[in-house]
């Protein structure tokens, strides 16, 4: 019996030569390499962004999705990885990205006009291969339109990045990739932080608006779904299978960018 099994096994291996490297070797699909997002809170929550998988970041407008994306882009470009941003809404602001620390020379920016172009551009980039980080920004697109994106597109993207070192991140107003995403994060903004030079009790926005400055806002990230054994950046191992955990982090206004463009407040 044992001999028959061995013969059968060798026959199968022979038949699959050139197509499957090791048909009888167990491959743990859940053990993936992860990289830092550049935000410690998100890294501790989700273990970082998984390579060779699709990560979905969704939330309403002004919920901090782009801040998280720029932080991750800054972390990847700092490691000299080639990154690509497929901008479905042409909403990317290079100044803001530069202020966030993104190395713009390492970033390929594809400005699309509609969803069809965006999906085709993503296909082309994934087929081309070699990018360490590909971001698909559908953040300003209508949720209704995105619901009509066929599910096979998400499957195709997932298959295209599987077994590659590419991180594919999708920004959306709602979650659409369903089970194709290995990591799903929901973002939500907390009230903005303002600072003023006057006494806050005596001052209010509409009386002395020029005395107020936007400082940033807090962002709450909730882990909705994760299927990975994470070899997190600092080496610890966790198994993230419980949904609903959340972390909050703060964003800061971009002083360099704003002060570069501004002069003194106009006299009232």
């Amino acid at each position: 019996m044992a001999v028959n099994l061995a013969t059968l096994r060798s026959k199968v291996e022979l038949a699959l030569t050139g197509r499957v490297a090791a048909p009888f070797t167990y491959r743990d699909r859940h053990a993936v390499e992860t990289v830092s997002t550049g935000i410690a809170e998100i890294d501790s929550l989700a273990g970082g962004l998984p390579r060779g998988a699709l990560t979905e970041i969704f939330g309403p407008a002004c919920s901090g999705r782009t801040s998280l994306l720029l932080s991750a882009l800054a972390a990847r470009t700092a490691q000299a990885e080639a990154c690509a941003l497929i901008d479905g809404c042409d909403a990317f602001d290079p100044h803001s990205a530069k202020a966030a620390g993104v190395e713009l020379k390492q970033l390929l920016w594809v400005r699309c006009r509609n969803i069809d172009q965006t999906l085709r551009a993503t296909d082309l980039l994934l087929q081309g291969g070699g990018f360490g980080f590909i971001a698909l920004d559908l953040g300003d697109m209508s949720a209704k339109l995105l619901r009509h994106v066929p599910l096979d597109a998400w499957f195709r993207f997932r298959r295209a990045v599987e077994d590659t070192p590419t991180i594919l991140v999708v920004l959306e107003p709602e979650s659409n990739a369903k089970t194709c995403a290995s990591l799903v994060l929901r973002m939500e903004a907390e009230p903005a932080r303002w600072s003023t030079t006057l006494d806050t009790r005596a001052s209010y926005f509409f009386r002395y608006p020029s005395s107020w400055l936007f400082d940033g806002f807090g962002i709450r990230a909730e882990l909705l779904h994760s299927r990975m054994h994470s070899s997190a950046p600092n080496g610890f191992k966790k198994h993230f299978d419980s949904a609903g955990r959340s972390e909050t982090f703060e964003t800061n206004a971009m002083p360099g960018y704003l002060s570069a463009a501004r002069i003194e407040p106009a006299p009232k």
Partner: protein
Amino acid sequence: MLRELNQLRNERKKYLESFASTEKTVSMAFASIHVPNFLVQAIMRAEPNLCDRAVALVDGAPPIWNVVAANEAALRSGIELGMAKSQVVQFRNVEIRQRSRLQEKSAHAALLDLGASVSPRMEDTALDTIILDIAGLSSMFGSEENIATQLMRRASGLGLAAHVAVSSNPEAALQAARGFSGITLIPPGEESKRLGGLPVRALLPSTEILETLERWGVRNCAALAALPLLQLSERLGQEGVRLHELARGASLRSIVLAEPAVHFEEEMVLDFAVAELEPLAFLLGRLLDQLCARLEARALAACAIRLRFDLEDSFEKDFQVLDDKSPRLAAKTYEKVLGLPIPMRNSKMLLKLLRLQLQADPPHASIVKITLAAEPAHPRAAQGGLFLPSCPDPEKLELTISRLANLVGNSNIGSPELVDTHRPGEFRMSRFVPASDESKILQKREVVATAHPCEEDTSTSRGAATAFRIFRPEVQVKVELQDGCPARIYFRGMRGKIVAASGPWRISGDWWREDTWQQDEWEVDIRFDSSASSRNERTSSPSALDGLYRIYYDSIRAAWFARGRYD
């Protein structure tokens, strides 16, 4: 001590023996390459499908066209040189082509490239023949036979079927290459014997001398070499002496060195104008194959491909010119430069890139002549580093970018680059060239590691920068003011209440230009009215758009606009 001395002696002996054997192997120091039936082969090089067909070349001033060259198959079919084209047409199985001097020029350039690929010392003897000095090449290629085989193989790669002869003197090699097919090796001292079987005609004597020799019954070189030199000189003069030396293989001369130009260009004149991309791509593929083979022969690659089409005059174009109020002659040529980020010589890849460029910007009329030129450069020699991050293969990346440019437009793809201005939202797109220099990458990583010494990666708990998303184009909004401060806003068909505002921040610039700008910027926190009906289908729920926006009042246009929002 004695043992060491003996060892040294043995080594010296071995060295001298090897040197002697090298001397022996390089005794035949000249190789001649001859392309038989060059005119036909030049045409066949551009049209490889003609290789197994009978081909006759015609030339002359219309309407008088005569056959100037034909291949073996055509000659067997009954075609004769000088035959009129009208007679050749009777032969159904014979392909008729017009003689192409452009193709001959290209084939000759390819022949020179072939020679230069083996030896830098080369004589450009004739359009169809070159002589190479192969002395000292044995250490690189091996024996003379190996060199000759290499030359045959490389010639075949360039689309030429050549005869190669190797001899100790250039004239003997030349006569042997012209007279014998395949590879001919003539050992020193056997020149007269090996050349003896050649007809006298192969020495290219003048017509008068050839007739005289035929009258004497001298048909081949052996018979000519047997004639007494003094008497031959008295009857035929110096020309006779020269022919005698050639027949004996005893002519001694130096080769006249030629420097092949580093100019790679292939041209093709079309019998019928081509308007569609598919047949054009087929022709471009052939030319690129030839161009890349030539580049490979010279161990070079192309850093740019220049494409030039001569266009046919078309009715539509004439009509456009006539319709124009200020008529100007439309260009009859179409030119395109395909710049490559790295030197490459993969003809298939280059063809794909050219096709994408032509799809994006097709020529406006049918094409009658194609010219392709390559700007040569040394090929990329790079070794991937073990510790480098993944980076797209430059060739594949160029193809991907070309495809994307075809999809979204050239101006919508690249790396963003900030420009030195205070005008909001200004940037320019530059070519995406990811860093590939290992030393620079490692240096950069060191800088990052120094900036974050306690962290393995770049994670920070100091807070991320607040990102900004831009509306392109900017959205015109209606703003209601309260004490000079925005209080309510109407944005994309929705009404919103401003709960916090910061500003105005006056910015202006470029007053010396026509497109001067002056804006009062505000950062406003908006809460949209959820009861208001949304007229815009982009928005699913007004409250989902609540957040911090940047709006501005344009003093020049006297209107309010939304620049974007923080996200």
